[in-house]
């Protein structure tokens, strides 16, 4: 799986890393049980500080997407292990709110927003070339 980071973007690098790994999992490019590279080597390859990658891995662990083991590194959890909890759903709803609000203010209908969601969802199910 390829990852693409924009160092000059306003989005912090650790967020970009988290997002890219999640996208890889969503697309099925990273399978449950796959190991992520070690913090040290991913940091070297990205040309960023080790703490940046570490932060991103811990965020992924908090989200329940990976398990960090002392010896074997960061492993993608299986679908059962990352079962959606009510807390997760609540969290997602919270993150979605500002986007829906912006849409509403600009006059988007519930249908339009729903259509948008479905489009994003199906786009991720088509394995894309590269990223």
């Amino acid at each position, binding site marked *: *799986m*390829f*990852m*693409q*980071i*924009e*160092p*000059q973007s306003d989005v912090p690098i650790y967020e970009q890393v988290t997002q890219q*790994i999640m996208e*890889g999992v969503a697309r099925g490019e*990273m399978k449950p049980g796959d*190991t*992520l*590279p*070690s913090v*040290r*080597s*991913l*940091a*070297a*390859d*990205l*040309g*960023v*500080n*080790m703490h940046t990658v570490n932060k991103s891995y811990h965020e992924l662990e908090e989200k329940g997407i990976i398990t960090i083991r002392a010896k074997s590194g960061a492993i993608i959890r299986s679908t059962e292990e990352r079962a959606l909890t009510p807390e997760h759903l609540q969290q997602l709803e919270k993150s979605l709110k500002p986007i829906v609000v912006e849409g509403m203010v600009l006059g988007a209908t519930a249908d339009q927003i729903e259509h948008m969601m479905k489009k994003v969802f199906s786009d991720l199910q088509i394995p894309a070339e*590269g990223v």
Partner: protein
Amino acid sequence: MLLGVFSTVYIITLALQLFIPFIVRETIAFGVTVPEQNVKHPVLRNMKKHYTQIVGISGVMFLMMMIVSYYYLAPSEFMQGYFLIGCLFAMLTVSMTLYWIYHQRVLKLKKEEQWGLNIKQVRTVDVTARSRDEMLPWPFYVVPFGVTVFLIIFTFLHYDQIPDDIAIHWGPSGEADSWRKKTYFIAISLPLVMLMMQCMMWGIVDSIKRSAIKLAVNRKEESLEDQLKSRKYMSWNIMWLSHALTILFTVLQLSNIYPSMTSGNRLLPIFILFLCLVFGSVLIYAWKKRKLRVEYGNNVASEVMDVDEDRYWKGGLIYVNRQDPSVFVEKRFGVGWTMNFANPRGYIVIGLPLLILLLISFFSL
């Protein structure tokens, strides 16, 4: 003999200098990042051609001067040696001056034509690349340490047998030309120097292993192949060098204990073999790099490019980047790798053994 060794070294160096612009990545012209959207700029091709022509012509001229002066200065071997080295450096000066001129010109052109100014810069990583890395594991570099330790013990056991004067320097024809009075320290100074060199080589390979696998965003697969193979070949090269050094120093040390070994130029083949291995491995590496080089048929039409790191490269030659955890990066103008001067690890890996090595030679000379 002297001329033979020198002209071989000279010709190999010249050949490498000539082809450098065609060995390094095409997206780097005279140490300046060229966006893939501009790689086929006609001016760049002309510059590379002119560089090779001028260095080639002056290189051949210096070579002829070298040969003529060798016979002209025949009575004094000392003068001959100096003149031969002088010619080598004159050739390198010509190529570096030319590099510098073209470096400035490409920079100017890049600025004038605003290359890559509105192109998004990204850094690409293959998260599976590390599992495909084929660099040799550490035991290949640590086994020679055992030879050194054994040699030191062996030297102490045979200390009484060693002649009172120990050879510490050998001339180009493999005959010792400098000696010191025997002490325990002098007796093992050679294996100690060898140990430091082995440490350095292990440190370099280990640091390269930890350094970045850099991909070209518009040529991911090809550049990944290039990176993985370059790392593999480099680790092989350093392994050969480390083992060759071990053999050379072991023979030299044994010849100190058993002086009869040196009689009648018997060490000469070892020196020649060592030189062949060193230069041969560099040439093979350069040739492999040339074959692995990502080729661009045309300017790439893409909205992204790799991160432009020009500001971290002083003069396109010295890499200083505090943010980059890599200790070694591939050279922008040359064959092989160079140090990230902002990374303290590099100073430990290279500097510390070098310092100890200098101290040993200082106290044993």
